[in-house]
């Protein structure tokens, strides 16, 4: 084959394979996620919420970071998953894994339906449309108080032990184990997706959406697929929150949650898969600390943190880190 000509001893496939291999910072990262079990066992409930929010941020990264879809209503799918799992449990079926699957199905179905609108717009119009979807769903849940509990939230959820063995305890060992396992498994799927032909097509859309039809690509079909997948993942994250906290409030569908997850992702760095994970951890630990220091005005500090990060690290924390390592390599 001419692919193996002189001066090019590495076959292109092997070169790409090497690019996609697991690197040691990734392995260190995932080992570090186990540390809360031993180092901060009194914070496992917070760690579980971080893992769930990280999963939610990961789903946003798939559409924003890899496809350029800015959403201000991504909580719609999160909340839909939360209410699905919550209602299922309230109505007498508290088995967590089937609850997750049903939540994924509902959120995915709604994601697929809305994707027909999403695929037709970009930029500002898209921000308005996603914002609208979030508001519509939240008010619908508010007015359907006889099902959702309305403003008081959904009460009476009881989650059964996982696989009939692991009980959700007061200290959060099961909570964090469950959330972390879910995050890791879905991360593996997302990582595979990013390194697939479809992932390449998404990068093409992000890079130059106008050029895609000229190579025979249907951008609408691609956008609909990734939007549906992202909705499914958001729904799973929401269901996990409902199952571990055993309550669902209207806030799960709200604008604040959509905005927060966007902030976390930008804080961590978009288009790198790990950005949402690191952003969620930094943001939620900061919120926990700041609200301890100053319960009323902690958003003041979050605001300062945001301005500082965006000014100093335009590509987020991860963007800054990769710039540093490249400089260090160039200097040595």
């Amino acid at each position, binding site marked *: 084959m001419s692919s193996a000509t002189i001066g090019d001893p590495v076959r292109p496939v092997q070169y790409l394979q090497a690019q*996609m291999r697991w690197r040691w910072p990734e392995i260190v990262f995932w080992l570090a996620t186990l540390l809360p079990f031993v180092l901060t066992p009194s914070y496992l409930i917070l760690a579980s919420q971080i893992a769930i929010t990280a999963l939610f941020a990961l789903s946003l990264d798939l559409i924003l970071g890899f496809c350029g879809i800015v959403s201000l209503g991504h909580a719609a799918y999160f909340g839909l998953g939360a209410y699905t799992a919550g209602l299922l449990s309230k109505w007498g079926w508290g088995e967590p894994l089937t609850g997750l699957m049903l939540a994924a199905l509902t959120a995915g179905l709604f994601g697929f339906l809305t994707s027909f609108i999403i695929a037709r717009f970009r930029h500002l119009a898209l921000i308005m449309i996603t914002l609208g979807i979030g508001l519509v769903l939240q008010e619908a849940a508010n007015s359907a108080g006889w099902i959702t509990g309305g403003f008081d939230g959904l009460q009476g959820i009881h989650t059964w032990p996982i696989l009939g063995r692991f009980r959700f305890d007061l200290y959060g060992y099961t909570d964090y184990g469950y959330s972390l396992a879910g995050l890791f498994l879905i991360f593996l799927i997302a990582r595979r*997706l990013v390194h697939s032909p479809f*992932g*390449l097509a998404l990068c093409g859309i992000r890079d130059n959406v106008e050029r895609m039809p000229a190579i*025979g690509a249907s951008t609408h079909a691609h956008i609909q697929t990734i939007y549906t997948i992202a909705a499914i993942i958001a729904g799973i994250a929401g269901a996990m929150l409902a199952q571990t906290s055993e309550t669902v409030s209207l806030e799960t569908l709200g604008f604040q949650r959509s905005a927060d997850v966007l902030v976390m992702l930008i804080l961590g760095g978009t288009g790198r898969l790990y950005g949402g994970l690191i952003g969620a951890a930094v943001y939620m630990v900061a919120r926990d600390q700041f609200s301890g220091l100053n319960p009323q005005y902690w958003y003041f500090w979050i605001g300062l943190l945001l301005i500082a990060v965006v000014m100093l690290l335009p590509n987020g924390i991860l963007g800054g880190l990769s710039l540093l390592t490249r400089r260090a390599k160039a200097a040595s």
Partner: protein
Amino acid sequence: MSENALATRGLNKSFGSLVVAADVELNLPQGVRYALIGPNGAGKTTLINLITGMLRPDAGRIILGDDDITALPPEQRVRLGLVRTYQINSLFPHLTALESVTLAVCERRRVAQTWWRQLTAYSQEIDEAHDILSALTLAPVCHRLTRELGYGQQRLVEIALALATRPKVLLLDEPAAGVPREESRELFAAIAGLSRDITVLFIEHDMDIVFRFATRVIVMVGGRVLLEGTPPEIAADPRVRAVYLGKARHESVS
């Protein structure tokens, strides 16, 4: 089977009072190398936009082989083999040259919706992309990001992207725009070396290149086809000399 690879019938388009295409009738037999020439604003790029579906005509039909494709969206025309390149580089700046062309191959083979298998499982597609880049002398830089490539190399990536879709009809909008003269010869040599199964229509201002590489020439003025003929016929036509060639000769001397 129609003898024409591509044909247009009564193609019309205007923007307000500005007529950019008026009753354009093209007949491109298979395998022919056509040059499309005309002064600035003659409607050459507009014609490519109309044919490829980037613009909707006000009236008229576009026929690819035996199929009327007037109503098809751009990406479906590409899948049927009607492919274009752009006058200004319109590439994927943050993908490598190999990734860009592999993407185009994957789209053609309809595997670009596959998200559960790793890209490296598609070694055939990757090798095909690499072969296309090799043929265009881009193999040594195929792992570099497109935006880091030289301008001439980027023009070649444009052509590589088009070839990856396996075109039957290839419309090249000033393929050598902005490329130094020596390099543009090489670029056209690559185009001339394309398979005779591919029908080529290119827009070009350099008359030496037009006369060297085109088998037939179409002259457009003010949205109309002024005339069509072999390069010697075009060179000898007084109307062409009046509207176009005299000026171009003059410019290329200065």
